């Protein structure tokens, strides 16, 4: 403990205070002010940026708190919540279940201990509920203990009788006697097995349904629908539901939940909801694991009455899976043969089956970049087949090639030749994005520098160059802008005695430049 204390006292300097936050993110403004608003430093908002003072403040708080840690940790934490290795508090139910799962032979001793630690007495000492919230008042009419365990119980029960034959009465009267029992949904549901059988005429059935709908309780509506489904022909049921939308939605949801796909499709067909029919059918593919079977299933979806746009997607889905199956078989073979360098160096992490198109494109840019257009797995072929936009293609190819550190491929991706044979760099996604992606893939500074230089907007360029420590670009840009102050400020950010510092000093002392400040 003494060691911790010494550490603690040594770090006892005050923490950085000066909070420069709290500036609002917006001002009253018109469209025209907008540019100024976002760029103006006056309204500098709180930013989620590494370099900010806010973060250094956080770091300092952390340092301070950590410095206390040694001291705090060597005490035992008996009074604090005990947390197991998995993060669940010991003794909690979630924790205990993990224990059972991990060790099915049971770890009795441990739990015995817990039992004594956390004894029942704490529960027994609870104040007795007062009359306002007594258990009996709370339970009344809901879970009646021990009742209705058997069918005979239910049959002999009176509510069933009084419930059923009320329909002949005028509505108001019916309502009253109905409401005596409707709240008691336990009764109603349990008893309807026998009682609902009494509703035999269509008129009675429909009135029953309407009554259920007017109560708003979905459970009761579904209960009645299940009865109607059993006692009415499909056509009659569908016909009546078509004009009862609330009930209809309940039936559709019920059929989805119990997985009665056939009846669901029949219903959509009857209702002439062709698009829902098609989507419902298509949805089935999610339940098919085997890729070949899934492919065959998707084939059956192609002719279905989707919207024009969806149709194209379904066709693409089928084509994509077809491709993936071919690529997967081929690549699995290549990989296991061990003859291909790329697969040896970068073993595949997962199968390509059922991956989205862009992932497939990335995969093919990664493993099959140089293949001729004629092969199914070549990126160019994918681009053509699925009409992948240029932007998307470039982004994906860039990410894949940068990951492999294939800088020549990256270079080629942005090089265009005009008719005179001059080369020019062009990026449909903007070079600022290119730089970010390269940085994410840990590109070396020389490479980053090259692309930062291609960013057109000077401010963006300067920001990126500073962020990614492309010193030369920053220095050259300041020189070009004739911004002596900024160059001077930047001098403090480069290493002492480095080539960059020398370069800055040379510029600052140069008499050739007419500084603007």
């Amino acid at each position: 403990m003494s060691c911790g204390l010494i550490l603690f006292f040594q770090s006892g300097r005050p923490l950085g205070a000066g909070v420069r936050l709290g500036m609002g993110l917006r001002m009253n403004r018109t469209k025209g002010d907008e540019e100024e608003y976002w760029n103006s430093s006056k309204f500098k908002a709180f930013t989620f940026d590494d370099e900010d003072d806010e973060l250094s403040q956080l770091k300092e708080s952390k340092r301070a708190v950590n410095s206390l840690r040694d001291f705090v940790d060597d005490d035992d934490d008996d009074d604090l919540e005990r947390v197991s290795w998995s993060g669940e508090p010991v003794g909690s139910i979630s924790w205990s279940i993990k224990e059972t799962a991990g060790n099915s032979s049971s770890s009795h001793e441990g739990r015995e201990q817990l039992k004594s630690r956390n004894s029942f007495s704490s529960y027994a000492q609870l104040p007795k509920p007062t009359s306002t919230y007594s258990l009996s008042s709370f339970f009344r009419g809901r879970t009646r203990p021990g009742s209705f365990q058997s069918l005979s119980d239910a049959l002999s029960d009176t509510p069933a009788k009084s419930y059923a034959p009320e329909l002949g009465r005028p509505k108001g009267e019916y309502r009253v006697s109905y409401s005596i029992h409707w709240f008691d949904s336990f009764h109603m549901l349990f008893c309807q097995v026998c009682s609902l059988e009494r509703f035999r005429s269509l008129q009675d059935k429909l009135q029953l349904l309407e009554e259920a709908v007017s109560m708003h309780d979905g459970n009761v509506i579904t209960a009645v629908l299940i009865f109607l489904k059993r006692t009415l022909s499909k056509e009659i049921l569908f016909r009546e539901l078509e004009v009862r939308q609330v009930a209809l939605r309940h039936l559709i949801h019920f059929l989805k939940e119990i997985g009665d796909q056939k009846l669901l499709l029949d219903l959509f067909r009857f209702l002439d909801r062709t698009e829902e029919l098609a989507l419902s059918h298509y949805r089935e593919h999610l339940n098919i694991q085997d890729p070949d079977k899934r492919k065959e299933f998707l084939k059956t979806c192609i002719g279905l009455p989707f919207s024009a746009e969806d149709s194209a997607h379904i066709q693409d889905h089928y084509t994509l899976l077809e491709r993936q199956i071919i690529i997967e078989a081929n690549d699995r073979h290549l990989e296991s043969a061990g003859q291909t360098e790329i697969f040896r160096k970068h073993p595949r992490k997962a199968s390509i089956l059922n991956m989205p198109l862009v992932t497939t494109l990335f995969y093919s840019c990664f493993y099959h970049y140089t293949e001729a257009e004629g092969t199914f797995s070549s990126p160019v072929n994918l681009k053509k087949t699925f009409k992948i936009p240029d932007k998307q293609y470039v982004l994906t190819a860039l990410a894949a090639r940068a990951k492999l550190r294939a800088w020549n491929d990256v270079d080629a991706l942005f090089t265009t030749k005009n008719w005179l044979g001059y080369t020019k760099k062009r990026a449909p996604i903007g070079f600022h994005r290119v730089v970010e992606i390269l940085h994410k893939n840990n590109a070396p500074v020389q490479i980053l520098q090259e692309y930062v230089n291609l960013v057109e907007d000077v401010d963006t360029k300067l920001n990126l160059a500073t962020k990614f420590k492309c010193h030369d670009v920053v220095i050259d840009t300041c020189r070009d802008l004739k911004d002596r102050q900024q160059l001077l400020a930047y001098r403090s950010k480069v290493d002492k005695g480095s080539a960059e510092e020398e370069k800055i000093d040379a510029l600052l002392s140069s008499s050739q430049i007419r500084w603007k400040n």
Partner: protein
Amino acid sequence: MAFPHRPDAPELPDFSMLKRLARDQLIYLLEQLPGKKDLFIEADLMSPLDRIANVSILKQHEVDKLYKVENKPALSSSEQLCFLVRPRIKNMRYIASLVNADKLAGRTRKYKVIFSPQKFYACEMVLEEEGIYGDVSCDEWAFSLLPLDVDLLSMELPEFFRDYFLEGDQRWINTVAQALHLLSTLYGPFPNCYGIGRCAKMAYELWRNLEEEEDGETKGRRPEIGHIFLLDRDVDFVTALCSQVVYEGLVDDTFRIKCGKCHGPLLGTSHMAGLVFNEIRNEHFSNVFGFLSQKARNLQAQYDRRRGMDIKQMKNFVSQELKGLKQEHRLLSLHIGACESIMKKKTKQDFQELIKTEHALLEGFNIRESTSYIEEHIDRQVSPIESLRLMCLLSITENGDARCSLDTHYGPEHLLTFSNLRRAGLLTEQAPGDTLTAVESKVSKLVTDKAAGKITDAFSSLAKRSNFRAISKKLNLIPRVDGEYDLKVPRDMAYVFSGAYVPLSCRIIEQVLERRSWQGLDEVVRLLNCSDFAFTDMTKEDKASSESLRLILVVFLGGCTFSEISALRFLGREKGKREFIFLTTAVTNSARLMEAMSEVKA
């Protein structure tokens, strides 16, 4: 900090009795199956259960081993099996497979299924179909109100959102009505009721019927809570779709707070309550660092005091203060860790840019830039859920369908997600019929087109302005601010979105409470398509104390966000010393809304 507990704030009702009630009832039900038994618990019920009971309580009532309900054969050798589950078909099939396997093996055991919060007829039907009806006994555990905080009750029913707003299934409305009925039994009747939304109205009517049934029980009780406000989530999707920037909301967006506990890598499973957290949870994130550093300094000073102490003082210090300091130290390191992690994540994903785009969408300027930002977001494959969220936000705020070729990027299943989003109204359609399809095909074609900028032309051609824009104008959701918006000293509820936007849901509640009716809000109600579903119901107030009239229970049907909670907490303290209490079907955020709309295999 910003919300010290004001001495003039009304006292909150004691909700801990809800936990006690739930626990008592569970014990009662467990005892209905006397003797040793193994308990199978559905994963979704584990965290709520943890908050009201623990293993030793279960053991006391002869629960031997605990298992998770999952699709695996049970290893249990117990003679009695008890299942604690949500009323779901797949659970019934699981139970049926266990029971039928036992039957095949010639084994007889006792089985009990406890449904929480209630049983559905469809579940019983499956038990019947599987031939095990009668072999298992069924019970209901009406545990539907979990106090997550002194002012926050959650029903822990995230599926409410999908079931009602997508499928139109009203199965949970009764559960809501029962919960409200329980509240009025415990805390007295609510003299003033307001509501907006179709579901709100139905829940209200069902609840009223229940009250009539049980007439007498609430009669004569003095109301403890003066107002109740019911609101459907689909009245305001926009707020729920926004990125959150108040601390608790941001933590929820980043790590997901589950059942009041945070399951982030750094926070472990610490309860999100605790002193440090209480003070910063409602703060805009920009104030949090300063607060934490202040706390760190104070803590350091507290420890520093030990320097000059003699033995006796030291002894005193160790016995009296050390524990608290240690606790605070632990919480502080947790939150600093969380902040670091948030910063790391947010820096990576260009959070600043994202927020800027959202604000532009909310204010309705520069749609072109926002649209191309969203497009780029999709191209960069940042996250499918995020992209979907932004598209929904664009679509609702602009009232146009912003469908992009997402399925290219995130798998073709998104076809189904799109269809769901549309049905739930998260992707809106500009006008029925030809106009729509024309615009839509134009938009989607352009989005996949090489010339990205052109998409805006499609949008600018939408002559009709969206309802959101009109509502926003009517309710003044975009505050006019001269000078800078000081997030340290919030001036209105907009602070929860950096001063850019007052949450629509909260504004509606504020306006109605101010007028104590919907009067003068007809146009807003019409624009919300809720003309038939905005209601008020006042009973005579003779018994309501002025204290109770300062308490307002807000019921969010379909979920509410931490930002909305923070905004209303602010409103309560700012205006007339009121206090809001929240009842939500679940705490939600944009990611949860989007995930609820996706299709997975059955």
